[in-house]
């Protein structure tokens, strides 16, 4: 460069005093709006937009009653994904950490969820039920906490042992648990569970946390995600249902989930805490994007790789700037 860095900076910063041309920015903007509007209308008419109906508890309990039933038992025994989750739902686990930072634990339990009562007992109690289930519910409510835990754990263990094949579960001291699970399965089959989980006995409700968490504890949602090619381990974060583009801009976020050690839950500490590590990485990279103009190397790449000669081709030609400088 024939002028000093400082002189170049001052020149770039000063108002342009050289050749100008007429340029109608309002006209340009109006044409751009019209162009985008037409493109959006054409795409909308030709392609529409994704709208796959939500799954329901009814659909789950009807199509895979055994899996729903076993999940209900897990909610009672405290072994489901939600019951063992940790913050912000309960204290069953410390949650994820990166080094000494246990942010999940530190943030506390701000959305407490009691899977036994809120997922099973309370919804079931809203129903008109057979004497068998009504008496099971009464037995459960009258029992001590340790008795409840013993029944539910025994039954949950027995189901796990036969790998979910309910007909193969041997008789045992399960108390009212089988009847409760059956009652909840019937309730779900009838279509009453979705609303009961949402309302929790109240009127207005805008928070679907309990529904979504219970839903994800079984295999129904997960299977549907696999079928729709939405699983995070196969770039699903960027996908959309059907033939539509998804959040393609999440490619870099999604990328980390595809490679070791992040894609291996067994690998400690990173794989087991991948969600947290990837959040930190993406936070740092986002900050990096903002700070590109002051990051050595990254900030001078555009000066070295002459893509700017293509962008400002007219300018470089008009001013006779040589192909190879220096």
């Amino acid at each position, binding site marked *: 460069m024939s002028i000093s860095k400082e002189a170049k900076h001052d020149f770039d910063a000063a108002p342009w005093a*050289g050749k100008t041309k007429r340029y109608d920015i309002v006209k340009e903007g109006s044409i751009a709006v019209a*162009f985008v509007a037409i493109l959006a209308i054409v795409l909308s008419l030709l392609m529409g*937009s994704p709208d796959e109906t939500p799954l329901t508890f009814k659909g789950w309990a009807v199509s895979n009653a055994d899996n729903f039933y076993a999940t209900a038992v897990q909610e009672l025994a405290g072994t489901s994904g939600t019951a063992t989750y940790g913050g912000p739902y309960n204290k069953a686990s410390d949650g994820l950490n990166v080094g000494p930072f246990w942010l999940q634990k530190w*943030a506390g339990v701000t959305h407490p969820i009691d899977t036994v009562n809120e997922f099973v007992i309370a919804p079931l109690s809203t129903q008109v039920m057979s004497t068998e289930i009504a008496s099971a519910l009464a037995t459960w409510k009258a029992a001590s906490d340790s008795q409840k835990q013993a029944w539910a754990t025994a039954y949950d263990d027995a189901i796990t042992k036969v790998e979910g094949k309910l007909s193969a579960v041997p008789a045992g001291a399960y108390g009212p648990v089988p009847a409760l699970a059956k009652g909840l399965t019937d309730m779900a089959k009838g279509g009453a569970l979705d609303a009961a989980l949402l309302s929790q006995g109240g009127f207005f409700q805008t*928070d679907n946390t309990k529904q*979504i968490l219970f839903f994800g504890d079984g295999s129904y949602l997960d299977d549907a995600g696999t079928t729709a090619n939405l699983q995070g381990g196969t770039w699903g974060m960027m996908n959309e249902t059907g033939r539509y583009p998804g959040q393609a801009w999440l490619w870099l976020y999604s990328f980390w989930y595809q490679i070791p050690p992040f894609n291996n839950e067994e690998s400690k500490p990173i794989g087991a805490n991948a*969600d947290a590590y990837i959040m930190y990485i993406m936070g740092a990279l986002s900050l990096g994007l903002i700070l590109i103009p002051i990051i050595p190397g990254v900030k001078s790449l*555009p000066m070295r790789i002459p893509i700017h000669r293509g962008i400002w081709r007219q300018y470089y030609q008009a001013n006779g700037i040589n192909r190879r400088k220096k």
Partner: protein
Amino acid sequence: MSEMWTAKLRNKWQKNLPIEKLLPDDQPAYVASWIYVFGVLTLSALAMIIASGIVLAFEGPAWYHVSDVGLFTNSMHFWSVQMFFVFMVIHLWGKYWMAAWRGNRFRTWATGAIAFVASIATAFTGYLVQTNFDSQWISFEAKDGFNSMGIGAFFNVTNLGQMLLLHVAFLPLILGVITVIHVLMVRRRGVVPPIDAEPSLSEAKR
């Protein structure tokens, strides 16, 4: 008089961004490339997003499931968002290869980059409030990332009411404000000269 806050603000505004700079009818001769169109296209797509979004907000989140007009409006919103990101990413790469932060334009770049991040957050909440299978799936999957950082304690992706309000009110407001600042910053500084532009070159003189 010049002690007045009002007068100070007016004088500062007059000096930095007079109307001739805000709405100029000429541009430096080097402003001759398709890449300059992408900022304006991004802005246009954002305008389409806001317009279709206002219609959707008027009718509520369940409308597009049951109405043809609703579905069309939702499609306009959806495709405007897809275009918005395509245009913005081209714009971003263009400005990177032009090193368009030169000459005291760091804040123009930084507000642009913050707009990019804010757009991702806004779009993400949009995907959560579709009230369809996709939003069920995304909210169940995405909660883990936010929970792992303790963010889930106050930003609950499985809470439809909270996500809906953030998506239609708070986040678009933030994105809108950042975008306005970004564009005003561009107008204030003027379009950055080419990387090898120097005072000695012929076009630097009138």
